[in-house]
């Protein structure tokens, strides 16, 4: 009898250890968003994780924790240096923001500090001008910039974020010098500067610009992406307008874990999270809010991160 119990106990403990990864997750998971409540990243993170508790997803809810500050640096610094690598602490990433910041320096993270899980969204940068602006295409903008070097003011949400990258790429592609004005307070402050006529133009998120344009307060002149957006089928890309601007500035949003998270947990998340993003309710809420979805698997994201690292190092050289 004793032997039997001992055997059973042994079998159970053996089973338990091998189950550790299989039974993951056993408790609710936390996801850190490095921007404030109400921002686009926070808003989308809440939508794409709302079905996490369902049986066909992770089976455990995901709670969002905001750690905003310094353009995301505060949250990602915390995630790289203090978060537990046990699979119960996830974070939202914004590419190219965190990669550009790590190249610029002064932060405790780089692409090597994190393991991507999956990508949920891609919000391209667009070039906007006020509704009553004389500019009607990127060519008009570039012509003005050529005639008035350094005098064309255009706003964007800070330095070393997607908007700044797009601005640098536009200047480089057209070979002109313009005055990029970084604003404090994110895309909405940059948009306000355009609508109020404080600046001649601006780089902004496609989702926010789409809303402002449907409201009649701005015109969208170009999309900094490889293809036209389904939200704006009539707006040509930068490339179509002869500017060599690729998708480096597209704001990719997704989920990552800290380096050192057990491989089984990463594999499990990488398999389940994209399915969670594909949920119909998630898709309908996202499109209702004008937030473009773009689901990518772990392998695709790894490839994208590496490509971004190379482009950005080149672009930010000498800045």
């Amino acid at each position, binding site marked *: 009898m004793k032997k039997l119990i001992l055997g059973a106990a042994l079998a159970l403990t053996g089973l338990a250890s091998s189950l550790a990864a299989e039974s993951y997750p056993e408790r609710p998971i936390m996801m850190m968003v490095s921007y404030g*409540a109400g921002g686009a990243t926070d808003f989308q993170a809440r939508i794409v994780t709302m079905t996490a508790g369902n049986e066909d997803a992770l089976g455990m809810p995901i709670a969002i924790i905001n750690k905003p500050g310094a353009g995301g640096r505060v949250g990602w610094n915390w995630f790289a240096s203090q978060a537990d690598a046990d699979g119960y602490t996830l974070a939202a990433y914004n590419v190219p923001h965190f990669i550009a910041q790590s190249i610029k320096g002064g932060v405790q993270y780089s692409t090597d500090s994190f393991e991507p899980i999956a990508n949920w969204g891609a919000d391209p940068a667009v070039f906007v001008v006020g509704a009553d602006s004389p500019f009607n295409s990127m060519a008009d903008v570039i012509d003005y910039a050529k005639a008035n070097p350094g005098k064309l003011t255009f706003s964007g949400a800070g330095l070393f974020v997607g908007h700044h990258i797009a601005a640098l790429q536009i200047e480089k592609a057209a070979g002109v010098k313009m005055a990029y004005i970084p604003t404090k307070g994110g895309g909405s402050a940059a948009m306000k500067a355009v609508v109020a006529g404080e600046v001649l133009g601006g780089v902004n998120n496609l989702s926010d610009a789409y809303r402002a344009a449907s409201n009649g307060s701005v015109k969208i002149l170009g999309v900094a992406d490889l293809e036209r957006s389904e939200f704006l089928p009539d707006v040509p890309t930068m490339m179509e307008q002869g500017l060599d601007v690729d998708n480096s500035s597209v704001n990719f949003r997704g989920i990552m874990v800290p380096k050192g998270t057990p491989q089984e947990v990463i594999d499990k998340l990488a398999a389940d999270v994209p399915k969670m993003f594909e949920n119909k309710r998630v898709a309908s809420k996202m499109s*209702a809010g004008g937030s473009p979805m773009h689901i990518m698997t772990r392998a695709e994201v790894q490839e994208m991160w590496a490509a971004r690292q190379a482009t950005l190092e080149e672009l930010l050289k000498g800045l």
Partner: protein
Amino acid sequence: MEFIYYFGDVFSPVSFALLLVGTIGGLILGATPGLSPTMAVALLIPFTFQLEAAQGLILLGAAYTSTVAGGAVSAILLKIPGAPANIATTLDGHTMAKKGDGAKALQLSFLSSAVGGVFGVLLLIFLTPLLAKWALAFGPSHLFWLAILGVTVIGSLDSSSVVKGLLSGCIGLWLATIGFDDIMGAQRFIFHPSLGGGINIIAALIGLFAIPQVLTMFAKGRQASGAEVIEVKKHSVLDATKEMLRWPRALTIGTITGSIIGLIPGVGGQIAGLVAYDQTRKFSKHREKFGTGHPEGVIAAEAANNAMVGPSLVPLLTLSIPGSPTAAVLLGGLLIHGIFPGSDLFDNHPDVAWTFINSMLIGQILMCVFGLYVAGMAARVAQVPQSIMAAVVLVLSVFGAYSVQSSMGDVYVMACLGVMMYFLERFGFSAAPLVLGLILGPIAEANFIQGSMIANATDGMGVYFLGGTLNLFLIAVVVASIAYSVWMEVRVQKLVARGEAKS
């Protein structure tokens, strides 16, 4: 007048129930230290996923209005301002509570909140298109001068002398530079990892106001145990209404200042209460009574911070641009239902837009009713013995600072600033000008840098910062404000000198 047509929707059973839940819940959340209106609204967003668009917004709108007013409860009773909007309320409100007039202070604060709040929402209803233009008129150069105007308030705010007030303000301005600079990304004074994001304003508020008070209570707790039982005076609502109407000037200045300042994107909510308080004092016949538990102080501050609620939503509702963090959260609440604020909202979903705005109007009144109901009971907090009170306030402070972004770093910041303030207070410095410096510093800096970048690319600094009617007007107000302070200072000195000569 379209809004009247949709009033019925607010009173449908589900909507009204949500309005009640939002109002009562908002009061409780608002009274909890550390839970700012923005946080409270963000916490409620997930609940609106399941609701219809109009109903979800009723919940959020009611919560927004009543958290702003609820912040007065902890400001008056515990001297912990729940949000920057309530800083000015502590100055006279808490002094009143210490004298046993807590019930009166709370009643005044809820009544004047309701007056200011209803006025603000009416502005939103009738003058939105006009206000939208006004909100957009403030560019970087104007916001810079506005921040400088705020700095001129610092000297005269709640300090024993102008010099000490200005010094406190400078400490605040320095504290504001800590962290990554928001525009350039430069690192400044980050001598501990928890300072990377700068000093969180809510954590700083709790530390600067509550901790010195806790230390003082602990310091004298031993010898005076139980000796200092405050008798809480009963105060009827009717008397409070009469009292409020005795001070029409404070009510008017508070309401109007709050509405105008609330409109300005990115600045409004935080300084509306303080500016209104200062203006009321400058125009008051009882200037010297401010800070000693004078009703005008509470009335002006609370009328202003609720008057700001309606106009602060104008940029969001008309232009789809959130002008404040709370408006950004509300934008999320709209987007989740596929509604874009702006012309889409008013043209295609008038039921949602007007039900939301109406619910804020009714919410103001409900908030006032519930606030008055709890005022009498809540004021008894003052009877709690000091030693216990100190412990309770300390626990609430730690909880509040932690809950802002679930970070122990904020708790350390709160504790350090609190201990520092305890010693500074002994030398006659005070917390209000310091906090104002902390709030205004980043506004002045960011707008100056942004403005100078635009100026350098276009007309040059001189024209950009000194040209234009609005710039000149703001500069004139700044000069007038400084001249007035100097004149008052000189007059007081003359009076003192004459008094000394006589005796």
